[in-house]
């Protein structure tokens, strides 16, 4: 193993440009991946918070069958929770926020209708639930903050999808970089490899230094990416917490450690896979 490791380091030294190019691309990819994953984590947390807050309010007509409508609303699969709030309860709530509401009600009567208040299981289903409830006989109007919820969900989902696409492309690019670097390294050692084959070296023996090369580059890129990403994220989220405490940023170690560990493992895995493919292909071409 000492021999293979030495050969791997020699191959990397003899092929510095390709090795550095691979290392940098891979580090950037892992940084990007880490960034997107952390962003997704925070987006998910924000969406969860939204899900907890978003409510569909269905205003009922005066002659509506309140209990029957409540049962119908509860039967909608996307509805997590539904409750009936009478016009009197609404007035009481409104009076808490706006004390003059009760005075006004005494003059013109209670203006608030009985209301069904629904919570959805997934925030993305809000519009669908609102549409279904609006279609029920006896429902006069529905309100769910359409503009706010729809735009937020669409933006967050688009950001998440774009991030995944970008990371996918970068991972593919990194894989090709590794393939290329290992191939160049093997080509540089072609005489030695040719001698090895004639002397009866196994494929595993010939491939080992280059597989180690991929592994080392992957591990170095992972270490570099984590060394940049972790402090940068912690400092950024600290700022966000100070400036916009409304955003539920993730900073707990128990959530961050597995995610960052996963990014590091992926870096090592990409390095390993790239070099395994490259060495296999090179030797197949020689056969």
């Amino acid at each position, binding site marked *: 193993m000492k021999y293979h490791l030495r050969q791997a380091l020699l191959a990397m030294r003899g092929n510095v440009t390709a090795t550095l190019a691979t290392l940098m691309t891979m580090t950037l990819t892992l940084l990007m991946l880490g960034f997107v994953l952390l962003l997704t984590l925070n987006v998910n947390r924000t969406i969860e918070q939204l899900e907890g807050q978003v409510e569909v309010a269905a205003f009922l007509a005066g002659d509506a069958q309140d209990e029957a409508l409540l049962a119908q609303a509860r039967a909608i699969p996307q509805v997590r929770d539904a409750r009936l709030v009478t016009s009197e309860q609404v007035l009481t709530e409104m009076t808490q926020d706006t004390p003059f509401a009760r005075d006004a009600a005494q003059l013109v009567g209670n203006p608030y209708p009985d209301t069904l208040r629904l919570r959805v299981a997934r925030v993305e289903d809000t519009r669908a639930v609102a549409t279904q409830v609006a279609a029920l006989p006896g429902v006069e109007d529905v309100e769910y903050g359409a503009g706010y919820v729809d735009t937020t969900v669409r933006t967050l989902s688009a950001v998440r999808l774009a991030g995944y696409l970008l990371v996918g492309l970068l991972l593919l690019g990194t894989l090709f970089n590794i393939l290329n670097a290992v191939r160049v390294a093997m080509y540089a050692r072609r005489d030695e490899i040719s*001698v*090895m*084959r004639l*002397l*009866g070296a*196994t*494929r595993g*023996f010939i491939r080992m230094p280059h597989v180690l090369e991929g592994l080392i580059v992957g591990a170095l890129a992972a270490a570099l990416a984590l060394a940049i990403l972790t402090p940068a994220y912690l400092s950024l989220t600290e700022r966000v917490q100070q400036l916009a405490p409304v955003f539920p940023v993730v900073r707990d170690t128990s959530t961050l450690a597995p995610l960052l560990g996963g990014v590091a493992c992926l870096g090592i895995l990409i390095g390993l896979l790239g070099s395994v493919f490259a060495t296999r292909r090179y030797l197949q071409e020689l056969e």
Partner: protein
Amino acid sequence: MIDFKHVTLEYPVTRTLALDDVSLNIGKGEFVYLVGHSGAGKSSFMNLVLKRALPSRGEVRVAGEPLSAYRGRRTSILRRRMGTVFQDNLLLPHLNAFDNVAFALRVTGVPQREWPQRVTAALRTVGLEHKKYALPLQLSLGEQQRVAIARAIVGNPPLLLADEPTGNLDPDNSREVLKVLQNVNLRGTTVIVATHARDLVETFRHRTLTLRKGKLVRDDPYGGYAL
């Protein structure tokens, strides 16, 4: 040791007929020359024995087994039973003579503690024990070829293939290399030498196989160069 039965080798890309219906047998412990003009099929013969090529028709058996039986890891094991020496000695320029020879032991997984004794013995056989720390560039072409022979025999293979081993050498060095190959043969190793060197074939007489345009045209058990 080596058995060719109606072997034809045609390279598919160039559609060159390298060997044409060749049948022969080389027994254990023999010393055999393979002679012929350039393109006669000598290197193709070597490539088949080394399993660097497979016959288009016919059967090649090495050590009693058909080439097709040697797959994957077994190909490596087959090659460990053969020492190979080429016109270009293929020594690794950054390793000294000792390390070049030891390289054969390293790649075949021989424990490191055995290297000094075995490498020294191989270098002694080729008369270069005193130059074990010399880099290839510090050795003459003849000496480099002898180091390549030491590397080929350090694993004690039962078969040694030498493809134009004296191609780059002057007459004196060529004779030295032939003597070394004969010594290796005297230890019981089967030696096959592909060569153009008429004087060597005439001087050190052994069984001689003559190839012409891929056909085996002569198998002379007493030697002699007759093209």
